């Protein structure tokens, strides 16, 4: 099984060191049975495939409404409205963005080859996404550091550009992943990117419905239904394009799962519009959550059982070996409920509209 030095880059004799190291450790964990088979006989490969996409969906939903607030920011020129928009996402965006870190970590830990292939293949796109996130994260913090007009105008612009570019590029990335495209950008992936911007805007409008009051609330909420209709139209275009150009995906597109997801998206979209009309912003935000998970689930369903179309890797090829998979599963099972608790505490503490003097300038 082991051939020292057989692959370039592995030092001859490394196995010797490692054997000694194993002996030195004295106790091997295999005794605990963690290396023998999947924990409790669970289908861990599929669970982790689902979990990775669930984490991605959570990031796109949560940070999505931050992005949407950033997109809506461009429509506000009054100082107090701009302050309120920044204060609305102030306590939340950092925690929301950490879901992206967890996505990267989970993909690395569970499917290392996919992590390596995807991110090195979409090299420039990845750095563009990270650049957009840097600008978006930094801008609100910088905006509040000085109160002169030029400074705030430029950081306000940076905030908008970062907030729109991030979902656009993330959508392009997701599109490229699904389509197995190696180009920087292609027409269908661009459509997915624009769709994600629209969905984020709808989420941002619903979120601002919760965080603002009065005229600002009415005006920002009005963007929501328009953005959502645009999102649904773009999804129809993307799915139609796939159906027309990718005969290999036709079967998957007509599968009950895919049809169900598309149907559910239409229902949730209608639900969103109704909720926004009735000023039930929690319901509307929940609808965008459902739509985001639906979109991600559609991508996951169309890919499966392949996880990296360009390299031709299936989920079963790419999964790590049993021992680290079991360990990661225990870790995730213990930690994910805790993380949800943190988010409940955070959102409960800041429930309700932005208060006077709250936000970046407040502390």
């Amino acid at each position, binding site marked *: 099984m082991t051939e020292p030095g057989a692959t370039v880059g592995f*030092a001859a004799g490394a196995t010797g060191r*490692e054997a000694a190291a194993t002996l030195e450790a004295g106790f091997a964990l295999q005794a605990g049975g963690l290396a023998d088979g999947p924990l409790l006989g669970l289908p861990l490969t599929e669970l982790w495939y689902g979990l990775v996409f669930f984490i991605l969906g959570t990031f796109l939903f949560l940070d999505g409404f931050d992005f949407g607030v950033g997109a809506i920011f461009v429509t506000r020129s009054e100082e107090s409205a701009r302050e309120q928009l920044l204060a609305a996402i*102030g306590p939340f965006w*950092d925690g929301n963005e950490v879901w992206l870190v*967890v996505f990267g970590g989970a993909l690395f830990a569970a499917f290392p080859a996919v992590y390596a292939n995807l991110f090195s293949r979409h090299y420039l796109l990845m750095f563009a996404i990270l650049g957009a996130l840097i600008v978006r994260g*930094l801008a609100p913090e910088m905006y509040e550091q000085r109160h002169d007009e030029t400074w705030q105008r430029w950081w306000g612009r940076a905030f908008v550009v970062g907030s729109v570019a991030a979902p656009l590029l993330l959508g392009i990335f997701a599109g490229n992943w699904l389509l197995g495209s190696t180009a920087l950008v292609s027409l269908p992936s661009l459509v997915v990117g624009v769709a994600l911007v629209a969905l984020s805007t709808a989420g941002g409008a619903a979120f601002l419905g919760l965080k603002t009051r009065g005229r600002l609330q009415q005006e920002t909420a009005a963007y929501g239904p328009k953005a959502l209709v645009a999102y649904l139209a773009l999804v129809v275009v993307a799915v139609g394009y796939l159906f027309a150009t990718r005969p290999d995906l036709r079967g998957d597109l007509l599968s009950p799962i895919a049809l169900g997801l598309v149907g559910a998206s239409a229902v949730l979209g209608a639900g969103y519009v109704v909720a926004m009309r009735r000023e039930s912003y929690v319901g509307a935000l929940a609808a965008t959550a459902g739509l985001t998970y639906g979109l991600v689930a559609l991508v996951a369903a169309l890919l499966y059982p392949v996880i990296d179309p360009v390299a031709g890797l299936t989920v079963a090829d790419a999964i790590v*070996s049993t021992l680290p998979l079991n360990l990661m599963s225990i870790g995730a099972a213990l930690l994910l409920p805790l993380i949800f608790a943190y988010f409940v505490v*955070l959102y409960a*503490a800041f429930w309700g509209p932005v208060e006077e003097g709250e936000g970046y300038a407040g502390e």
Partner: protein
Amino acid sequence: MIEPALASRLQFALTTIVHIIFPVMSMGLAPFLVYFTWKDIRTGEPIYEQLRRFWTKIFAISFVVGTVTGIVLEFEFGTNFAAFSTAAGELFGGPLAVEGMMAFMLEATFLGIFVFGRERVGNVLYMISAVAVALGTWLSAVWILIANSWMQTPRGYELVTENGQMIVSLVDPIAAYANPRFPWMYVHMQNAAVLSVALFMAGVAAYHLFRHYHWEYPVDHPQFWEKTLKIALVVLIITAPFQVLHGDAYGRHVAETQPQKFAAMEAVWETESYVPEYIIAVPTNLEDLTNPRAKEIFGIGIPGGASWLASGGDPSAEIIGLNEFETEAPPVAIVFWSFRIMVGLGFWFVLLAFWAGYRWWRGQLLEDDLLQKSLMASSLLGILAVEVGWIVTEVGRQPWVIQGVMKTADGVSPGLTGFEATLTLVSFAVVYLGLLALYSYVVFRIVRAGPPSITPDAPETDVVREETGAGPKPAGGDDD
């Protein structure tokens, strides 16, 4: 175009060198903030509210810049070192994932409450938030350093062939993650972070106090800065000597586990006994700087000192020279000089701590001008010591990415082109140096403006004060 392997290494070096500043600030500030919050809640004294609010501002900006620069690092393993990530993901990906879930989530969510939520939550939840943020930053370092230390002293793995590729497979997680280097690295790094922040606080406080008493250019809250200085000095007096003592023992551990790195730290090319330790080395020509050889360098050497250091007390101990190893030596000049700068700074901090302690004891803390100036000049030197220390650690282990197992050059993404790598390297140089400049500018402004004014029993926010003009304006608050 720079070739992809070199460009990737330079880019990773650049991004980590800039990034590490922000975690050092947030990890180092975290225990101080827990203390300030605790005292603020328990005593209700305005000075603790000032301390908490002032240093939280710096913590918050450090955290945000640390987040945006740090996410890049997590993805850079995949973008630039795909071969390494594929081969070592089983051991290396897990700690990164757990870092995100266990530590980063904790700090990022409770940070929202800690920074924005003082008026929204009760004392208990606020205190819990302070502790959670601090715990998160320190746990974050646990997992990141587990990943890093495993690359320095890899254990608990087996090399297997999977899908025609050689991969490093995890066989014993306890041996892998509780590897010999981890405790050394963690203690050294966390103490360094606290020490660096203590130096920063002391330097900033000394600046305001010097301005107030010596230049007679009054600042608003001299008592705030005196309190800051004293708290910082207590911490400095504990952490500075500890860092040197710990570093000495750490050096022996490196000599045992990574002899090639140790030889580079000492620039020893030929295997010898009774190797002297050059505590002061002066390059007398360009050759000494670029290609130092311990035997030829001009300096003060303690006979047998390096041997003594490597073996824990035996001046006759043999140090294996760089020529003895099969692999090429790491860039010796960088490692040798970085190590000397770090050690020199370490001793300087001890001197500074004792000096300040002595003056304080004699009741002359604010009367020694040279001490005040030295504290000011040293405010960023802790961070410099962390940088050169990490350069010793990371450059010193070259050519290996995983010591003795995989070479850095073989870890680079196979499909990466020189054009892509050069483009992102240049972009990062611009963006990260710009970020650093921006961060420095913002921290400078916060420091110059000083702490918020607090009226007892009626805590005001900065906004209220600015809008109503009820309170005194902070010195230098000239922005609006």
